[in-house]
């Protein structure tokens, strides 16, 4: 099987699982973003839920699950982002009556 290597960069909560630094992952040539995620998830099925709802970047641009990866691509695993102001964490908040904006 012809293979290729991509660099995987985990962020946020995914660092606690996958490590804080970039790692190199070997995939079949022509593998997609979805196949990469399946491979990462299969390494520890008990934590695979952490991959739900994430976005992926390829070479610092958001990429769809169907995108075909290429040798040397830098793939960011991006949990839902939480920049900006303090937003509710841990649990989601119940909106105030009248639908007040957060």
């Amino acid at each position, binding site marked *: 099987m012809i293979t290729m290597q991509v660099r995987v960069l985990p962020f946020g909560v995914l660092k606690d699982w996958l490590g804080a630094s970039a790692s190199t992952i070997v995939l079949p040539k022509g593998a997609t973003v979805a196949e990469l995620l399946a491979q990462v998830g299969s390494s520890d099925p008990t934590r695979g*839920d952490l991959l739900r709802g994430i976005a992926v970047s390829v070479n*610092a641009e958001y990429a769809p699950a169907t995108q075909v990866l290429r040798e040397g691509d830098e793939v*960011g695993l991006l949990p*839902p*982002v*939480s920049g*900006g102001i*303090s937003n509710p964490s841990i649990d*989601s908040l119940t909106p105030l009556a009248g639908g007040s904006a957060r």
Partner: protein
Amino acid sequence: MTGRPNDLGGMVLDAVADDYEEFNMVVSQIAEWTKNSASNPAIDQIELALMNSIADRDIQAYEYSESSCRYLAVEADPASIRTRWFYITEQGKRRLLEPTVLTALTREPIDAEGLVAAAKRGEDGAVVVFDGVVRNHTRGRQTLYLDYEAYEEMAGKQMAELAADARKMFGVRHVTMVHRLGRLEVGETSVLIVVASAHRAQAFEACRWLIDTLKQTVPIWKKETFVDGAVWAAGEPFPAGMAVAPPEGSDEP
């Protein structure tokens, strides 16, 4: 649009703009042109000749008094549409123009007052500021500090794009968007957005859109440390179509 090399190793474009609308059109053409010039990495500078009237007016708008300016130059990174503007005096000196978009990630405290003052210009009728501050609690737990981290290369690019988009969408004159990284104590500014515009409605709308979109799409994360433990903030779901794996409970493949 075609270019010819100049003696600085850059590219000269023979575009002419008669009024502000044309000027903006030329600018977006340049952005498009540099984006598509990846195959020609030698292009790292573009000079744009402007009619005297527009050049004078623009320079005045930016409170630069030298009336000798007849050229604007754009330093463009072919890999992105971010540009730095210069004007060239008759003596051939390059002077940096006040950017109309200022975005940054910083590990230093954000000088909110200074950035707001710097954004104001005579032609603005409204300056809307969003100053995001670290608050002292989340859901009843007492916050000690926050640690912000970013996918810096991507976040910087995204913020620059958002700021440029806001200017186009809402027609505001200037956008400043600065986000702090590293450890922040309660009461410190985590994000500052300044929108300056002739009219307040556009400034309010642009500011609101910028913070909402930043919170959903710019790759920045924070870890909250409370008196009794630490947790990565849950974050807001990505806008539709951006997440590659469905959230829990979804039927999508």
